[in-house]
């Protein structure tokens, strides 16, 4: 039984990281209908910036974590301003391809730095003894990761519900013309959406960097797993992203725990999110919590 609980706890931990990464993704889609395929790269960039600040400049890790979030905030905003502002109104395929191009550009820039090829690890600042309760173990880094994730998710939910800027972002995602007519600056909102996405990406990157160590290729593949999470949750639902993130984390852990090794299966945790994705899309074509556009073929 404790094996099962261990899997659940690990699943929630991993899932909340997925949720945090998916959050940024959904933010961008919700306000500007853009599928940002370069999100994984922004997560990696955020992680490396945090590392550089901690190890090369010597700032304490908590401070550099926040600083990397701020830097990535502005980075993402400038990316939107430079590359995507021109593409408002273009067909969706163009916008997706631009983000794919951005993926390669950010890749290239990271290769220019020494981070492209090499293994790095954050200095350890938390006690190494794991927390154990009821036969389940959790490391301090994972615990801190989960706490930060939930704080950020709570923060974002409050932001969207209560603050003026958040409400204007929701307005823009609902109907661009109507929001323009009441005086909301739509391009500014787009920039802000990307910036907040960058914020959450840097947070996710910092947490992942602490848990697994920094290797660009690992972070690369992490960026791909965000897509099934987002789609299962529904592209325009923040709540959906959180739920789907945790579900995916749980599914992966259960697959690794119960399926691997039997019937000669290996690495099922990698493929199961995609299979689950296809199954869910069969029944709910707009994801679990996405807005359902009534269309029949």
């Amino acid at each position, binding site marked *: 039984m404790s094996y099962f609980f261990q899997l659940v706890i690990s699943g929630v931990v991993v899932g909340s990281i997925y949720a945090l990464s998916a959050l940024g993704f959904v933010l961008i889609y919700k306000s500007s209908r853009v599928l940002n395929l370069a999100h994984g790269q922004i997560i990696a960039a955020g992680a490396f910036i945090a590392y550089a600040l901690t190890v090369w400049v010597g700032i304490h890790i908590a401070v550099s974590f926040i600083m990397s979030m701020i830097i990535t905030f502005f980075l993402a905003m400038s990316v939107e301003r430079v590359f995507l502002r021109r593409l408002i109104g273009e067909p969706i395929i163009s916008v997706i391809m631009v983000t794919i191009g951005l993926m390669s550009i950010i890749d290239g820039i990271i290769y220019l730095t020494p981070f492209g090829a090499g293994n790095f*690890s954050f200095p350890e600042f938390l006690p190494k003894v794991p927390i154990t309760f009821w036969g389940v*173990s959790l490391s301090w880094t994972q615990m801190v990761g989960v706490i930060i994730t939930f704080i950020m998710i709570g923060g974002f939910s409050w932001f969207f519900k209560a603050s003026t800027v958040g409400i204007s972002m929701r307005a823009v995602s609902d109907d661009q013309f109507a929001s323009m007519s009441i005086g909301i600056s739509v391009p500014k909102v787009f920039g802000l959406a990307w910036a907040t996405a960058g914020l959450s990406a840097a947070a996710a990157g910092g947490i992942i960097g602490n848990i697994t160590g920094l290797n660009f290729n690992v972070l690369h593949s992490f960026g791909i797993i965000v897509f099934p999470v987002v789609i299962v949750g529904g592209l325009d639902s923040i709540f959906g992203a959180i739920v789907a993130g945790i579900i995916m984390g749980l599914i992966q852990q259960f697959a690794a*725990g119960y399926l691997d090794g039997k019937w000669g299966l290996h690495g099922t945790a990698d493929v199961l999110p995609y299979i689950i994705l296809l199954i869910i899309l069969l029944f709910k074509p707009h994801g679990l919590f996405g807005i359902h556009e009534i269309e029949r073929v």
Partner: protein
Amino acid sequence: MRNRRITFMLVVLSFLLILGFSVQAVAGETYKMGLSLAITGPTSDAGDPYSKGVEDYIKYVNDEKLLGDDKVECFIRDDGYKTEVTKRNFEDFLDENIVFYLNYSTGSTLALKPDFEEEKIPVLPASFHAGNLVDSKYIFLPIASYSSQAVGLAEYVANNYKGNGKAKVAMFIHPSAFGRASYDDVKKAIDAGLNIELVEIVEHGKDLDNTAMLKRLKSKGVQYVISHTVQPPVATLLKSAQSLDMIASTYGEEGKITFMGAHYAGGPGLIALAGSAAENYYWVTSYKLMSAKGPGTDAQHALAKRYGRDDKLANDSNYTNGIMVAQVAVEAMRRAKARGNKVTRASLYEEMVSMNGYNAYYPLTTVGPVTYSKTDREGVDTLQLYVAKDGVFHELGLPFSPEYVKKIK
């Protein structure tokens, strides 16, 4: 009289002309080699230092005139770990008429195997995959294959097991041909009498967290995990194990798991990635580590300093690897020349297969001699066990040669 003078002049002139051309011929040839590897892209943390090792050694050979008047030219190209690009680079090198080829990735070595056989060119890849030697005559492994290393580790476990019954071992391998070959050979060794019990083989995916797997292994009573994969998955594994407080702090500690790994599943890069979770990790390879002092270490430092490389590179184990393969290639060329043969693919192949017994080659970079023969195309057969203590790998014991490797051949 006048005719005679003219004839004499003509004879002298033609003599001088012939002399002029023949002087050109003895001015020194250039032997060409090719290397296609991942300087960027996946595994470039190993590929980048490797390429610099080869480059520096070749420069050294030319500067010190180790081959007399002849020079060696090595074309180094980046393929980003993509097999298509490697193949393209190989075709390009063939157009340049290379006589020796250094390859890198397992995938491309296997894909190009039929080409190597057709072109009859000796190849020394950075991949120690035993499958490279199947159906091929021209591929030589620099050191013991991954399979031999895994068998060596398994042997060490069997020999040092103090409990009753058999040691329970699990293997953690890379989900590709690179990972699987080692476990086939460990299985064969067990069939040939190796006294361990292989509880489970885990092919890892891109997991962020190995808790489930570790708990499962623990519940099956596994005490030793032999890893054969690249560094990042091992680092994730070790970090997960550390958070579950599962890492043995001494060899074979009861109730805990001792983690061990073959060549690419360890090294200073692993310590950089896993931090304190890599404490007490056992690693086996045939190369000398820069943390062990000796003539090899000094020579490597001197080489790095001579060509302006930084300290991090000078201490990198992949820099050692690169130097070593270049050393073997140049040595083969030197021997061919010493025998009075022209340096061609065929003569180099002959030199490679006769590098055994009294003709074994002792580069300073490895723990044992490089021996090749028609039946044994694994270079250095001896392995050295290292253990990570205080963030550095230290030698443990003397170099040894696993016996079961010979038994399963």
